[in-house]
């Protein structure tokens, strides 16, 4: 069941803490509430995934080290009044300004906003689903499908999240999963797909999360 505006609002201040949905900061409810969704804003940090030194993505190849290099080398943090120009066909990771904590009986989905979509801005490549029990900022997988660069400034409402009431509480919510890779993230995190057990490991170079 998709939650309506009033049900989302009630969940944000639910007196039963296990049922409470956390979304913070809400700067202007008037602007952010849609009939069945809550608009989310762009934060200040971006991860530009460079390709000049890489022939391909190989999860078997020292993923932890690579992540750290990217985290330190290509990360951009803007001041609130600065801008990031997303060029056509460019792909960057960014995050929501809002921090989320979903209860065990709610799932979420992040989507773009129509006004931005009309300029070619896509906010996720494939992973728009938010698990029950997840906590942290949500990742935007931003790309520009248009033909002109898009100027992005922290605080812009570029996405929206809707919430689904589940048929029952999850048995193993995200926080209890044996490998909750992005739990309580407060900033953009690059892919940790290399930690998945089915990915072949090179024991000499592979590290654990």
């Amino acid at each position, binding site marked *: 069941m998709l939650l309506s505006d009033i049900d989302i609002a009630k969940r944000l201040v639910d*007196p039963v803490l296990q049922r409470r949905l956390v979304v913070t900061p809400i700067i202007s409810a008037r602007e952010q509430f849609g009939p069945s969704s809550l608009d989310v*804003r762009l934060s200040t940090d971006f991860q530009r995934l460079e390709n000049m030194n890489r022939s391909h993505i190989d999860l078997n190849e020292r993923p932890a080290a690579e992540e750290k290099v990217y985290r330190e080398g290509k990360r951009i*943090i803007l001041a609130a009044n600065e801008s990031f120009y997303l060029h056509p066909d460019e792909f960057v990771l960014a995050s929501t300004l809002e921090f989320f904590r979903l209860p065990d009986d709610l799932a979420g989905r992040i989507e773009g906003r129509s006004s931005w979509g009309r300029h070619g801005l896509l906010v996720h490549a494939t992973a728009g689903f938010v698990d029950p029990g997840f906590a942290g900022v949500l990742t935007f997988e931003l790309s520009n499908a248009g033909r002109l660069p898009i100027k992005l400034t922290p605080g812009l409402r570029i996405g929206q999240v809707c919430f689904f009431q589940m048929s029952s509480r999850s048995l193993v919510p995200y926080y209890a999963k044996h490998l909750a890779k992005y739990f309580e993230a*407060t900033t953009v995190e690059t892919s940790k797909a290399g930690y998945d057990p089915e990915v072949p490991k090179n024991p000499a170079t592979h590290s654990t999360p």
Partner: protein
Amino acid sequence: MSSTPAVRRVDSDLERQGLLYVLSEALEKFSRLQQILKRQQIFIKVEHAEAESATAVDKLINYLEAHCEMFLGNSDRVARLLRGKPLNEAEEKAVIQALGILIVRTLQIHELLLLLPREVAKPQASFLLRDCFGRSDLKASIVLTNQFSAYEYRFEDILEKVNVEQKERVALTHGGNVLCQAFGDKDNPLAWAVLAHEYGHVLDDQDEISKGIVRTEHSSGGVDQLAQQAEPDLGADVVAETVADFIAAHVLGPASLMPILFVEMMQPRLDVRQGMLAGHPPTPVRVQLVCDYLTQLGVSTKDFELVFETYKLDYERKVQEMDEAQRNGLESMEKQAQKLLSPLVSEIASKVNSLGLQRFGMQNVERARLLQQSLASKQPISSRRSRLDSDIYSALGSLKCGTTTPEQAYKVLAGLDEVAVPGSEIVTAGWLYRLSSFEEELMKTFPDEPGQRADLDVYGKYVEKTDGLLLKSLEAADVHAEILRRLTSA
């Protein structure tokens, strides 16, 4: 810093508290340093696989880890000490000595970071200063450097030191300042309170507060008297440091003192070279003056009282361990500083108050206490609701589909709007959270199972997570404030 510290018994609750503070600070510094070195190692390996410098970083990491191993050999004893279980004298000495060595080595290696490729300061440090001082343009940049030379540089002072002629200086001076931050504190907003002190010097220079006070006092001979004891300008320096202390306390409250006290407690002995002779009044004098000033502002220091008491005991014991000549010298410095500053304190306070800076008040302390709970539940604290959740919930219950107008709905929904939290509250809440949570994290790091070694990564992750929450809070608060400005102007 260069030799093994003296060993003393942990024979009171306050001594134990002091040891816990030192242990937490040492592990924090160690884990931050380790993170920086590992980042450098990866960077060098990926970018310059054949470079000689890779060996240097590897050596530093190995050296640090060897000393860490020695400390970890005492895991059992630390675990027992943490839980108040008795240790015999030899065991207690071994723990304190191993901890002292880890601290000394960590601080030594930190100084060598100066020779490695530089990292850059986090932009959130500027967000914090801009917020505290209400300046859109700080006219000061932040750079990372080593621990023992981290302070504020004025372009004018440097030009004077390198003998640039007066007429040339005009072309080179832009009135800018550089605030230096220790490498290890790059990700640590709790340590950035020191930057507020350094920025206090920038404001002091601009408004000539200490210079004005010193000029007036020269006629009474007070400042000269102190200056004659050591070196020229010392009296003026002591006044300038007090002005900067008051400015930092004015905008940040008691949390402005915390990094200074923790770093000093961690030092194996008092280094007088970093005290009065470097222009600062002895720290106990600074603490007393700042606490008195905060009391005048109506700000309680109660939440930090245990740190002050522990620091005092630690200081007294270190003074006792000094040789007689040093001890007498330090005690005499303390008396002189008190004598010099006592008649000036009210004038300094009044000048700082008249700068028109955002004042940290008791309501900020109270709100920080509440925000600390959000940090404890691992949530960022960039904003808070003004209305009670229970009130909003009942108001939402009164809305009915079909009969409620959109304006009525928006009016109730507006109760969910949050206000941005000032940086000073974020830092204060961060300190309160740290002081209330570190002991439990130490317990997790040193499990109470015979023969089990401590896992320092556990403490490292706690440090990293707390940093992440505080950095996110400062970042989001900055954006929040900017959006409100945009909405207001629209």
